[in-house]
């Protein structure tokens, strides 16, 4: 399922909203999560899971074509941990 499919499904369920309005709201939800992580906050949603940043250390990488060594700088990556309820729901 893609985000577009999801927006279509949700706008069918919510009569008071057009597909366009649903799209704006759904985008705003995911933007809100992104913004929280970008400012160093974490997001915890009960029954679903949590989003937080994990640190990746600097490492030495290699250009696979030329074999030249390059430093890959340290960075942060978004990480999602499924909550207990989601884990059990998916695995049953």
């Amino acid at each position, binding site marked *: 399922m893609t985000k577009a499919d999801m927006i279509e499904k949700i706008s069918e369920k919510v009569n008071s909203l057009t597909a366009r309005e649903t799209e704006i*709201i759904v985008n705003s939800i995911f933007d809100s999560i992104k913004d929280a992580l970008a400012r160093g906050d974490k997001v915890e949603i*009960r029954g679903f899971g949590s989003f937080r940043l994990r640190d990746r250390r600097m490492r030495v990488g290699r250009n696979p074509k030329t074999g030249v060594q390059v430093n890959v700088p340290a960075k942060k990556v978004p990480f*999602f941990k499924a909550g207990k309820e989601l884990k059990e729901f998916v695995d049953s």
Partner: protein
Amino acid sequence: MRKADIAGEVSEKVGISKRDAEEIIDLVLDTIKARLKSGEQVKIARFGNFIVRNKRPRKGRNPRTGEEIGITPRKVVTFRASHVFKGYVNGQEGIARGLEQ
């Protein structure tokens, strides 16, 4: 940040009530859950993909007693952040907002 905080932000940005925002958040989460349960992946453009992975059975060990135990096969949810999301949390605003084109 919790669900109520997200609802607050959405409500302010979009101009709907907090209650309506929370209802849509719940619909989004329930939709993702239901799809994952059926084994389907959920791809959210500019955010990331939620994927269900099948883990094979393997042997584990109780770290305290050293006793060997079987770990049953199971399904786990993983998330892969999109390039946009990864760029955004590392301060690459242009990529995050899709302004590079």
